[in-house]
Each structure stands twice: as structure tokens, then as C-alpha cells.
């Protein structure tokens, strides 16, 4: 499978998980003691740790708008623009930069047929378990929310209004497990 396919499937999973969470019905978060896993069949999965940075030194585009982070006259972050109305303006997340670190994100398929105060036996299904890392560290994460007349900042007639900026620094506690499973008609 190409990286593109894997990426899209990964996005699909994230989207699926996101939508399930939005429904507020089909996903649960609860901390499990490690000992609970002793009764779980189908052990497997992976444990991920590491850090991810976006445009720490700048991006690959060098033009009148984008440049190196050492060039204060230009923006070195990434940019996302999307258009909600045909021939309308563009919503923009601009100058996206920062670094995330985490330790102990787990991913596995789990069969729940016991526990959870007796609810597990009634549930009796397989789920995708995303074990959340205890801490996600944000290091100089920032972006701007803006509106723009064009998709690219180098397009003719480009105008942009920066509405507000967001900066994040510090630790976010994420404990427990995210259980994702399908419901309804596929």
C-alpha cells in the first residue's frame, strides 16, 4: 500500500474516531488498570512515544510570503485555507508551527466481554483501543485564524485579515483509553 493510501486510511480512522466521539454515545473514556488486561484475549498492538514538530525551522516554500523562521519579514509556518462557499472567501489557519511530545500512546484491538461493572459482559464486542499518553507536551505551538480573499497568499488580489492568534505551551494530561467501535448500519 502506498504511503498515500496509508495516510488516507489513517485519516479515515481518525475521522471515524472523531465522529464517534462527537456523537457522545458510542465512545467511552475510562482508566483501566493494567491488571484488567489479564482477562483480555487478543493481546497485541503497539506502544508509541516520541515528538513531532511542524515547521520548526520553516517550510519548503521560499517566496515573497513564506521564508525561513530567521526572516522576520516572512512567515515560516504552514498554512491551511478552505472555502465554504463557491467563489467565496477562504477561512485560513496560518503560520502553523510548534512541537508536540508524548509518551505511551498505545493502539490495539481489544475484545471486551467482562469488567466495567458488569457492562462488559453485556457489551461483548471488539473495539479499537487507543491508550492515551499520560502527558502531551506542547512546545511553542501556535497558529493564526484568519480570513483571506484567495487560497494562496501569492495569488493576485490577495488580502488577508488575521482574526486572532493561539499559542500553546505546557503539558496536557490525557489519561485513560479511547474505545472506538462501529454502530448503526455500515
Amino acid at each position, binding site marked *: *500500500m*502506498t*504511503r*498515500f*493510501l*496509508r495516510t*488516507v*486510511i489513517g*485519516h*479515515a480512522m481518525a*475521522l*471515524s474516531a472523531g465522529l464517534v466521539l462527537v456523537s457522545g454515545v458510542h465512545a467511552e473514556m475510562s482508566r*483501566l*488498570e*493494567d*491488571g484488567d*488486561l*489479564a482477562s483480555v*484475549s*487478543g*493481546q*497485541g*498492538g*503497539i*506502544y*508509541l*512515544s*516520541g*515528538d*513531532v*514538530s511542524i*515547521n520548526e525551522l520553516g*517550510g*519548503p*516554500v521560499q517566496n515573497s510570503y*513564506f521564508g525561513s523562521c530567521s526572516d522576520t519579514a516572512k512567515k*515560516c509556518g504552514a*498554512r*491551511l485555507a478552505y*472555502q*465554504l*462557499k*463557491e467563489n467565496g472567501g477562504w477561512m485560513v489557519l496560518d503560520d502553523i508551527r510548534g512541537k508536540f*511530545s508524548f*509518551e*505511551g500512546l*498505545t493502539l*490495539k*484491538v481489544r*475484545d471486551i466481554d467482562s469488567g466495567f461493572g458488569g457492562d462488559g459482559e453485556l457489551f461483548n*464486542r*471488539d473495539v*479499537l483501543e487507543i491508550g492515551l499518553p*499520560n502527558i502531551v507536551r506542547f512546545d511553542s505551538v501556535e497558529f493564526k485564524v484568519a480570513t483571506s480573499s484567495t487560497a*494562496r497568499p*501569492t495569488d493576485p488580489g490577495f488580502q488577508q485579515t488575521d482574526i486572532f492568534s493561539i499559542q500553546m505551551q505546557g503539558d496536557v494530561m490525557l489519561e485513560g483509553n479511547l474505545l472506538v467501535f*462501529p454502530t*448503526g*448500519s*455500515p
Partner: protein
Amino acid sequence: MTNREIRFMQSVFAYGVLVAWLPMAQAEMQSLAESDMAAISGQGGITMEMDLGVTADSISYFDDGNGIYLENFRIGSASTPGGEAHHVIKLDIDEDASLNLDYLVEDRRIEFGDIRLAGAPGVSMGGIFFDHSVEGGLKISPGGALGGNGFTFDSAFTMTGGRLGYRTNGNEVFLDDITLDVEALGVTLDVSGGAVLLEAPSVVGSYSVGAIRYSNNPLNHGNSNDVTTGQLLASYGSLSGDFDLSSHTEIRAGGRDGVQGLRVDNQTTINSANFIYRDDGNALALLGITGSYVINDLRLDITQDWQGRNALGFTLGSLSGDININRIEMGGNGKSIGQLNVSFLFEDHVFNGRSYTNAVYLQGGGHQDAGTQGLRLATEWSLSQADLSYTDNGNGVVFSGLQSWGHGDVTINVTRAGNIGTTEFFDGIRIGFDDLEAGYRMNGLRVGDEDAPLQGGTELLLAMGVYPAYDFKVDGHITLGAGGASGEGLTINSDIQIRDGHAALISAPYDEGTGEIPQKGLWASDLNYDIHVRDMTVDVTDDGFAVIKGEAWSTMDIGNLRIGDKDSGGSFGRFVVQNYEKGSSMTIVPGGAGNLCVGGSGADAIACGASGGRWEMRGDEGITIKMKQVFAKAVSDTRKNAFTWETNRELGGDGQPVNDTGMKVVLNDIYTGDGGDIDGDGIDDNTFGIQTDLSVDVYQTRVVKKSDGPDSAGVVGNRGDEIIMDASTAAGYRYVASPTSADIDSRPLGFAVQARAQFKELSINNVDLVHPVGGAQTAIYGAKLQNFDIRANLTATPIQ
């Protein structure tokens, strides 16, 4: 087998060995009885010179009444059509009655123009030719390993100017400029227990193949240069290597079917071997190969396959072995990916309720549109157990419990580009799949060695594009053309259709120690996958292994993305991923991340530590993959990048969801770009694509406990404690709050990935919501992502 039959077989075999080492001397030599030779001493010897030309319309072999015909048999000159091959043979008899033969054969071709099976009119397997000059000696002494009734052979020869080719329908592929040196001393031949025993304590040699050439000109036949243009024929590359083997072989009468046929049992030890493939001088080298294998109960019959088609059948009882490759080098810098070991056992096994065996039934014909000549292999395989071990700078990971099975037809033709009937052919060796049903699965990972506890984590292979488990039906072809991006190499054209597939994205073990169970996982089920590749070149370059795609498009239609069981697990719905790339490339470079700072910055350990990072020295082995994926703008409904998720489908009469009856969200026409018309030709440029560098090492990783108390193995620790491997404990590890330096050296192994992905522009033309009755409504009229540079240092460890 009666004593008379055994004596006859012994004589035939000795005669056959003599003929093999002294090709075609039998036309002039009279056989000598042993008693005659015993009485001869002090002879000056005999020298024979001859120019040999032999032709035969057909040589037939019958097994239980079924025949195979080797047609248009010829021995003669390799360089002069209709000419003769020159032979010089010196025969001498020593005082111990041993027979000495010195021989010189020049410019000889042995050829079968065609191979046919009785009962299969109109089709054939194609022709084989073998050109060579050979000089050597053979000594045959009385007495084998078991006593005076056998023989002992000492042989050494050098073959030069060799050519071995396969030809179908006027197109041919051949090994050109073969040189082979072999010394086999003390080879014994005996008969015991109804079997011919062949003991080869030492077979040592080396070889080289100057080029592997392809011709689509029917006028060429074993020519290095095209006879029409004078140009050197395109080459797949060259080969060289050496070997030191010892073996024990038993040959018996009697096949799998009927009373006639042949049975072969063999044990071979690879004391040492090296294999090198070169592409324009750049090497892909498998060095320090050692191991052994055992062939048990291999039978040869002229018989029928499971569809009643006449065939030359090879059926196998079992094949087991253990092969180790000490270094895998690529490119010009002599760097190694690491060490590879594979142990395997092919034997009958039941997969998914169906029994599989190991058999190949050779038939004539190949692909039905390619012409009358070709090979069709009705094939079934059953790999019941294999372990694949990869070691990077002494750190080992075992992909444990690999199983594979398959059943169906594989066709082989040498083809030339063009359309015949409804089939498009390309220049090269066409490997076709005709209703082939196949699959594989892995049980889990073992870290360290094969005795370590079974763990999850096979999904880490997804980073390399390999599913942990996959079963499917497949039709289509892969055609391997000669010549790469420049000079030697491969050019691949392929059309593959996968049906009714199940691909695991995450998988649990199929055997947790108490017998096989249905494998749980996250499955791309009810999978139909069409994949097309045009002009993809594969080369070994100075950097490593380079793949450049000309044009590639595919549609991956996942009928149900299921969790749990692959057939009955809950479904997230249908996902369709369409892919269209032009000018994408990938390079595999030996060596991983090397020395790096994780979690900080700095060019050495001190600077890294000062920045709060951790300095890691991951060694000189490992793998780095450099990818460039250029997603092209849509040119049709089948050649575009798009993603569709469909749910709430109506159920059909069989209770299964019917595609295109539900609600969909569609991300349509996704493509990369350089951010505008940089070169001013009026068209937005698209050359940068998404560029991704992945450096992968097997390395020690920090794994912390996520909650207080005992874990699944009953090992007690507190939240935040590190796992430290400790063979002296029952579980093989313990938890440590503050690891010492010695503890840190015993951190668990996992995959360490240094990654960087960057793109200038990625666009989505529109995002639609589609109602089965109301049609499509556009939710987003375009999205554009620009100037992304994402870097990551990740460690992935199997969960215990």
C-alpha cells in the same frame, strides 16, 4: 525394487553422471566393464577429437502411459547455425583402475525447441537453449561410500562463454556470458535400500553472469547484440557469487501417482555462499550466507493437475530449512541494512478450513493471448511455519509464526509490447496470475530471539507497506522489462486486480499458545483493489535501491472496515481510496538514523544533553527510505486521488450492504503542487510532491508503566516506572523507578523511526456529501495546505 532393477539403475546413474560431466562423449565411447578396467595398467590413454552435430525431432519420456516430448532437439555449434561443436576427450586408466577423463568442449549449444505434453494439443512450454565452452577433468574410481559396489567421482571444470535462455513465441530471455568454476571431490554413488545414494561432501565453486538479456526480435536467438540493429540487447543486470556446499541425495523409483515416476530426498548444507546482483556496477549483495535445508519426498510425475489437465507434476512432502544472511549491502558505499535469518517449513496444513499442499504442475501455453508457447504453473503452496529475524547492529526482532498459503495458476511468458486480442502486453517476462487465491499471516513479534515471549506489533510493518495479515484472490500480471532508468535495471508494467480480500491494519495472534483461533484485528474486508503501474523503473544506484514510477493509479474499495473478526466483526462502513501518481519515486538507502538527538537539539552528546535531549547512537545499519509522491490532478473518474466514506447502506437480499445506496462523504481530486506556475509555462507545476524520509532502526526504547499495580503478567510497578528487560525474572522484565546506566542498556527493543515529511502544496478540489436520492452537495469548495515541514522522532514498541 528388485536387485536387478537396482543394478540397472546403478549402471544408468553412473552412466548418467559420466554423461553429465562429459557431455555427449557417449556418442563415441564404448562402456567398459569394471573387470576390464581392473586388468588394465600402464596404458597411455586415448585421445578423441570430434566435431559433433546431433538433431532429433523429438525425445519422449513416458510415466504410467503419460508422455512428455522434448521437440527439435539439437546439439551443435552455438555461434554457427547448422555447425558442429568441437570436442577433445582424453581417456586414461590409472593403476587403481580409476578412469580419468580430461575434456575440452568448444562453442556448443544444446537446445530443445519446444516441450509438449501428450493430451495438450496446440500449446507448449517453449524452448530452452544452453551455450557453453567447458574444460575439465573427471576421475571415476571404483568403490563408493558403502563399499566396492559403488563409485567415487572427483571432478573439476571451468565453463566459459555460457548462455542459458528461455524462448517463447520468438521472444527470449537469457543469462549471457556465464562463467562457472566447480570442484566436487569425493562424490560417492551407492545403491542401498532400493535407493541411489549420492553423497557430495564438498562442492565448491564460483560463478558470474555478465548480463541477463531480453530480446523481442524473433531473428535473435542467443545473440548478445540485436542482429537487426547491432545494438547490445537490454539487460536486467549481472550476477556473481560463490558457494561451498555439501549434500546427501537419495533417488528412488516411483512417483506420487501410479507406479512410475521419481522420488528425490535431499539434505544440503550451505557452508558458505555469497550472491551479488549488479546494476551498472552498483551492487545489491547478500554476503555471508550459511544454512541448510531438507527436501523430503519430492516426487516427479507426468500426471494431471486438480483440474484434470496434463502436466509435469512436482509434488512435495515437506521442505524445511534455516538460512542466514550476514550482511545485505546496497549501493556503492558498502553499507549494510543488517542481518537476516529465515527458518521455514513447507508442509501440508489446513488454512481457513481448507487443506493445502505443496505442488507445481507445469503445463504449456502461458497466457491464452500471448501465443501458443509459454508456461502455466498450476500451483499450490503451504508454508506452515516460518520465522523471519532481522538484526540491526546486534539488536534482533523476529517476525514470528509467518504462514502462507495459495492455490491457482501462474503463467510465464516472454512477451513483446502490443495488443493481442483483448490483452495489452509489454516487453519483458510476464508473470501472470489467473484466479490465484492466496494469503499470509503473522502471529506476532519476538524481540531479541525466537525464544522470547510472543508480543504484538506486526502492524509496525505497515510503515513498510506490508499488512500483518492478508488474504485475497488475484488476477493480472507483472511484466519485468529489461533496462532501468538508465542502463541496466528493471522496468515494471503491471495490472493487478484483487478480489474478496481481507487486509489487517492491526492484528492479534492467531495462536496464543493453545491452538489456532480466528485472528482478531482491524480489517479492510471485502476488499477489491485494482492496481496499475506503467514504466516503473527499478535500479540499484550508488545510493541504494531506487524505484521511479512513471504513472500509477489504483482504486482500493474496502467494502467493510471491520473490527474484530474479518468476516463478521462490526463495520465502520465502506471506504474507497483512489490514487493517481505521476513521477513518484522511492529510494531505499542502507543505514538508519545513525547518531541523533532525541527530544532536544545538538550535534553531539554534550550539546544534546544540555538542550534536554537524549543522545542516541543507533549504529551504521538500519534502513532509510526516501519517498517522493507526486499526486496528479484528476484526468478521469479512475485516474484521480479521492477518498470516499459510505455508511447507512441498504441491505441486499443476502443481508449484505449494497454499495452506493448509503450516505457518502467524498474528498474529491486531491493533488500536490509546487505553489504556482513557477516555470511560466502556463501550467501549475507539480514536481515537489510529498517528500518523506524515514530512517528505521531496531533500537532500545523507553517504555513506562501507565498505572500503579500489577500488569497483565503480574509484574508490579508504579506509574511512570520504566520497563527493564531482565532474563533472571520470570516475566523477563521488571519495573524500575530510576534506571541506572546498566538498566538503560537493557531497555526493551523496538523500532526507532526518524521521519521528515514536507510538501509545498496539497489541494482538495471539493468535499461533497452525497445522498443516494438527493445527489451530491458540496460542503467545502476547495482546501489548500501549503508549506508543511513535519519532523518526528518516534519509537514503536510491541505491547507485552
